[in-house]
């Protein structure tokens, strides 16, 4: 029995439960936390939003790969796949925005700005929209291969969908792709700088600087990350068939991005790091996480650079 998925469609069937059910749970938890006034449960629910937003990325990617894998099977409508993917793209964007709002609230929470600010309500609002879009995506996904629930009428009107419109826009402008690549490289630098400098401090370099000073750099790194998710989605949509076939390059990169994003959460909220003052030495566990984080993001860069060279067998 293969409990660990071995194909993109299998991965997608497993992963898609996480953003959908996870967002529902996180929303309920956040609403409950707000009503009873628990700061810790608020923080926990915000953390969940960040994690599920990150997991939504490989969910989307495996979904596109699954689409390529099954599109020529009898009884599968390519139209249904396209409509589901467009809905998924909207849901992904909404979830990423929600995840960013949640992360930013957690980051601001360090500055002694109360969790009673605009953060949690913004996450509640954005999260609700994301949940609605996710439920719509899930329903459209069911249309692909569950004839027992099909209403008989193809979902949504005719005409090119969102994904097709983006692909067209990029394809019709010669400057678009090189511009996206340049932004992707700059986003990579903006992400790696804060990661590396924070790791240097945690490992003992520049010890006269309190950790809190490096904590302020994290939004810059997240900005680089956001730039790269946007341009990365652009690349992927334009050529999802090719990326889906790069089993040994692209999917490891996506997996590392999720883990690397969770590592960023660690540097954002971990108490022992925040208390690291000038001259203090970080705990050994934090140093290990710092090393691993740098290795993970280096791995993301390496896999990205090696994509053309890692064709699947």
């Amino acid at each position, binding site marked *: 029995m293969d409990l660990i998925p071995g194909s993109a469609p299998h991965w997608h069937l497993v992963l898609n439960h996480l953003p959908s059910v996870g967002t529902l749970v996180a929303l309920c938890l956040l609403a409950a936390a707000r009503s009873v006034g628990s700061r810790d449960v608020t923080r926990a629910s915000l953390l969940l939003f960040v994690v599920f937003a990150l997991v939504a990325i490989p969910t989307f990617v495996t979904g596109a790969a699954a689409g390529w894998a099954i599109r020529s099977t009898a009884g599968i409508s390519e139209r249904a796949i396209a409509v589901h993917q467009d809905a998924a793209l909207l849901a992904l964007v909404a979830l990423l925005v929600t995840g960013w709002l949640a992360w930013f609230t957690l980051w601001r929470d360090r500055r002694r700005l109360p969790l009673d600010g605009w953060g949690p309500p913004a996450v509640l609002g954005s999260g609700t929209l994301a949940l609605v879009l996710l439920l719509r995506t899930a329903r459209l996904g069911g249309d692909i291969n569950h004839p027992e629930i099909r209403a008989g009428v193809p979902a949504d009107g005719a005409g090119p969908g969102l994904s097709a419109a983006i692909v067209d826009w990029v394809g019709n402008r010669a400057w678009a792709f090189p511009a996206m690549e340049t932004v992707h*490289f700059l986003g990579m630098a903006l992400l790696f700088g804060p990661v590396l400098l924070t790791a240097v401090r945690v490992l003992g370099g520049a010890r006269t600087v309190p950790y809190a000073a490096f904590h*302020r750099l994290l939004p810059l790194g997240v900005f680089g990350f956001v730039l790269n998710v946007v341009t990365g989605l652009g690349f992927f949509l334009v050529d999802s068939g090719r990326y889906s076939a790069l089993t040994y390059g692209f999917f490891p990169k996506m997996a590392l991005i999720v883990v690397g994003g969770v590592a960023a959460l660690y540097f954002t909220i971990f108490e022992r790091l925040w208390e690291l003052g000038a001259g203090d030495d970080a705990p050994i566990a934090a140093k290990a996480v710092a090393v691993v984080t740098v290795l993970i993001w280096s791995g993301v860069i390496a896999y990205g650079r090696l994509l053309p060279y890692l064709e699947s067998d």
Partner: protein
Amino acid sequence: MAFLSWLESTGYVKWMLASLVAYPFMLTVHALGLALTVGVLLVLDLRLLGLYPTIPLTSLDRLLRIAWVGIGLNALTGVSIFMTEATQYVTNVPFILKMVFVVLGAVSLAAMQRVLRRNASTVEAGQVPPHGRGLAIGSALFWVLAVVTGRLIAYL
């Protein structure tokens, strides 16, 4: 030109191109060096321009050294990559521009470190030394342009 053709024909280049891993390795380390150099420098340039004031100016000189590691890695990998197609690269306009920006960027970095060291008392007082802001703007600009022109090498 003859020298460049000779470079292309060296055993080193032959080994790089014949090996399954050597050339991709050079490209990968070059990308990592870029992330390191440009990433660290953009943050520290922003510091000199007044952002992130809780990072003490006195720590800048030491942190700027990290960028030299990236520059060194990219000089080595860059020369290797250049050698594989020397005759082509030398006539490639984006490549020439990139080299100009890299040199200007490295010079700015050295100048920033010198300015910080020569004005130690100003730095200790928490003030950005003279020319510090100008050098920071120049540095950020040169390295961003190096990345942009580097990307365009494949297209023009």
